[in-house]
């Protein structure tokens, strides 16, 4: 993977020259913070450099915008997830706070699962996790969520469809 040939690198370098300031500007307007904007813009170009075939890029600015947007989403979502996770530790009687590194790995995993389950209702997520992680039967899940077994089957079908769509994006 990656732009290892010189011409690919030159192509992205050219793109950097012509579009970096522009990208910084639009990210800055979106974020309202010049510092973060430069980080995001730089990271965006690194991601472009990692694309297998930069010469096939037809609309550089549309591509840059999409990647930058995804990076911003991910960064925010990561903060949302991290905050929510730390909240849950407060409920625990003897919470063992994860070290910064442990937290990093955990949040990364959470972010991936979150992406996989994006758009599903909280009940569907619950049913799916009870089944996939805890091995509960549909009947047990129905009891826990206080719904009918056929409703649980509907939840599971929704989750499996989402699994397909998430994988089809990859």
């Amino acid at each position, binding site marked *: 993977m990656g732009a290892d040939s010189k011409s690919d690198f030159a192509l992205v370098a050219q793109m950097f020259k012509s579009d970096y300031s522009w990208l910084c500007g*639009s*990210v800055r*307007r*979106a974020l309202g913070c010049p510092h973060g904007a430069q980080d995001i813009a730089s990271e965006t170009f690194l*991601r472009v450099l*990692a*694309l297998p075939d930069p010469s096939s890029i037809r*609309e550089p600015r*549309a*591509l840059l*915008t*999409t*990647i*930058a*947007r*995804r990076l*911003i*989403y991910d960064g*925010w979502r990561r903060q*949302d*997830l991290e*905050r*929510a*996770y730390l909240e849950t*530790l407060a*409920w*625990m009687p003897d919470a063992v706070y994860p070290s910064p*590194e442990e937290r*990093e*790995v*955990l949040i990364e*995993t*959470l*972010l*991936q*699962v*979150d*992406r*996989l*389950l994006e758009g599903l209702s909280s009940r569907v*997520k*619950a049913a799916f*996790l009870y089944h996939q*992680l*805890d091995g509960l*039967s*549909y009947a047990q899940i129905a009891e826990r969520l206080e719904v009918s077994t056929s409703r649980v*089957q509907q939840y*599971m*079908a*929704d989750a*499996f*469809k*989402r*699994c*397909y769509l998430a*994988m*089809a*994006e*990859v």
Partner: protein
Amino acid sequence: MSTSRPNEALIDEAALWMVRLQSGEASPQELQAFADWRAGDARRAEVFDRMSMGAQAMRAGELRLIPRDNLLHTLNAPSGRRRFLGTSLGLGVGAIGLSLLARYVGWLPNPGYLSTGTDERRQLTLIDGSTLILNARSLVETRFDGNQRLLLLRRGELLVDVFKDAGRPFIVQTAEGRMRALGTRFLVRQEDDATRLVVLHSQVEIATAGGARQVVSAGQGARFDAGRILELAASDGTESAWTKGKLEVHDRPLGEVIESLRAYRRGIIRVAPEVAHLRLSGIYPLDDTDSTLQLLQRSLPIKVAYYSPYWVGIEPL
């Protein structure tokens, strides 16, 4: 991806089959009906296999460590700022396939982490000259400084051959505790809620998170959790066979043997509870799990059923 996108109805059908198959209650007739459905159209197989892979991705080990309520609360965290961004950075992006991006955004490896995927082993020389072998589906973080050489085993299994450096102790840390090398060669596996250590040469000292200590000598194996040492016994010498691509077992239950194979196979292997306790001995290839499954089928009263390349069932005859 292929140009003809599978239609919504096909995805619905595949999901209903998945629901039925994963209920654990599908009858032999239903399994046959499913096999017929799947074989009827190549797109069905493709959709079903992708769906299996997605479901499989959910089963990350780290998630099991989080109490379920906490996990649900976390994943249900609202994302308040999305809508705002949607309008302020709203350029036309229709020309870009999401598929192209999802592949490259957010999936790059982190610096400082060494990892292996399914069906992959890696041997590496660390910067201090020590040799590290990582089993499949493992993740290690290296933290070396002037005072110590620390490896954090996040998941999976490793074998390390420590290069002598009297001034800097070599330590492997897992969820349950730390192991300090007093000698050279040992093996550490992160299990679901315990750590397994096998010492191949010299000695290693365990310090559990709860403060229990134990020195383990060459030829011994130990299991411990955060609180205490659970087991200390002579090792049967089979534990490091994976470094040579083999799985060696002496009188172990089938369920446990399949657990060791999982890191070498994409997709789902379901072991019927009726056969999980069957015991076996032997040496099996790790890098060719299909052959291993065939070998198992020949030596035990079981049937290996392929519902798809990503979904194998091990059932009573």
